[in-house]
């Protein structure tokens, strides 16, 4: 048996010629269930470790799981579509398309939301010139609909015209707060699920309504943190936590977030993602804020995967206490 040199996590290492991946992991004292193995830039399935043979010059990357999460099993999937970012980016209220384009470059979102019936009330431009929409998964919303029928028709139109199978159901029930109409939202969700849409309803933070939407077949449930556009932040953290614990599809906190720490908080408690528009569009420096939100969701998710420390009611010193003169 001869030793050969391979590259292990970027460094040269001598291994026995022809050793299997499984044996190599054992020699390295690494539990196979705790790593993802990339062998010559291809991810190897755990079942194949025993029959995968390592040869001279091979490149191996071992990626360790941290706290139950890993790059491979921590995908954000909505309606069967894997999304690279847990930040869903809005496209409204930007001072110009140029600012929006800079924000998208800074935040690198995968999914962006567009209003099919966007009325231009504030003098800005509604069209998205200079932004390559094909780079994104479009989430059209039914904003502007005030009835279930209206939302259903907008969704059908989006699909019939080849625009998108995804639909964010948004049925405004009160013009002042723009809070959603629970009954119409549920009705539209039921019908559109029946018709095969990937339905992501916007809802208030009502726990039972979120459960009903999940039961109706929503691909994700999108509770608001605070009314749309207010940037008031997390008004009812308990309800969001309860929704996350009850709903078995991704929970995406939508509407009302103000600062990135709130987005991180949502992810820490188990929300799958956040949708942010006004907090970025109306920040003093929107692209910087976009980047901050993108970083916050990564940090929040990492913290969720890491698992928070136990909450104690009695102080426990962090430094050693023995040997210290009293």
């Amino acid at each position, binding site marked *: 048996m001869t030793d050969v040199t391979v590259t292990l996590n970027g460094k040269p290492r001598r291994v026995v010629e022809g050793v299997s991946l499984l044996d190599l992991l054992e020699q390295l004292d690494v539990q196979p269930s705790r790593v993802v193995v990339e062998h010559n830039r291809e991810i190897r399935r755990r079942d194949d470790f025993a029959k995968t043979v390592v040869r001279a010059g091979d490149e191996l990357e071992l990626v360790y799981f941290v706290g139950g999460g890993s790059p491979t099993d921590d995908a954000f999937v909505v309606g069967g579509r894997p999304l690279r970012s847990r930040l869903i980016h809005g*496209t409204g209220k930007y001072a110009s398309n140029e600012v929006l384009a800079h924000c998208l470059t800074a935040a690198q979102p995968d999914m962006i939301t*567009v*209003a*099919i*019936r*966007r*009325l*231009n009330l504030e003098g800005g*431009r*509604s*069209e*998205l*010139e*200079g932004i*390559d*929409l094909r780079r994104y998964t479009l989430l*059209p919303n039914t904003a*502007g*609909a*005030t*009835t279930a*029928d*209206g939302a259903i*028709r*907008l969704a*059908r*139109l*989006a*699909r*019939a*015209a*080849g*625009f998108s199978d995804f639909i964010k159901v948004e049925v405004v029930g009160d013009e002042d707060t723009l809070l959603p109409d629970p009954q119409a939202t549920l009705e539209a969700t039921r019908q559109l699920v029946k*018709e095969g849409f990937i339905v992501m309803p916007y809802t208030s933070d009502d726990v039972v309504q979120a459960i009903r939407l999940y039961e109706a077949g929503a691909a994700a449930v999108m509770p608001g943190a605070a009314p749309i556009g207010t940037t008031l932040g997390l008004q009812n953290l308990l309800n969001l936590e309860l929704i996350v614990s009850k709903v078995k599809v991704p929970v995406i906190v939508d509407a009302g977030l103000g600062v990135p720490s709130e987005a991180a908080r949502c992810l820490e408690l188990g929300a799958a993602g956040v949708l942010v528009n006004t907090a970025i569009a109306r920040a003093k420096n929107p692209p910087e804020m976009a980047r901050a939100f993108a970083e916050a969701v990564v940090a929040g998710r990492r913290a969720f995967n890491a698992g928070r420390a136990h909450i104690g009611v009695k102080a426990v010193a962090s430094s050693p206490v023995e040997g210290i003169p009293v």
Partner: protein
Amino acid sequence: MRLYVITGDRGDELETARIVEAALDGGATIIQLRKKSMPMVEQYPLATALRTLTLAHEALLIINDHADLAIAADADGVHLGQDDLPPDAVRALPGFEGRLIGRSTHSLGQAQLAMNEGADYIAVGPVYPTPTKEGRAAVGTALVSRVAGIVDRPFVAVGGIDHDNAAAVVEAGAHAIAVVRAVYDAVDPAEAARRLHELIVTRLEVARR
């Protein structure tokens, strides 16, 4: 699921309904009732017949110009030309709530304006010369590309499109195509719709790669 079929002027109620049903069988997802010379008293029963057919095929029914007929026949919406009522006036009509508004546009400026006015979808054309819109200059696939680059909502390319040139329109960025003659006047409208639909879907898949 990307074929928008507009009725031609010829044919009575029965003939029109027969052709529309064939188009739906062939995969049309949106039907527009457009009869420039048929009296409204005849268009009403035709519209209600098309409503029944489109519902059975899970397709949308849009009425050309006449918002009153769209409401009366419980259609999904109305399609407005540049010379018709403004969209916000139509949207405010009693009984119109929840219905869709589409708008014909012939330039980038008109497309931008239609979006700012809150049209739910826009039609861009005529892409090629067409007897349906005699005297109107064709805008070509160049305008389709430019509109595709700015729209944040559904849009359809329309005007003179048939099985021979549809691929170029899809390649220009259209996700949906609207036709009159290519299906309505075809010898076998179901087969024509099926072939056109298949071509659009195939081209879109190629474009995605």
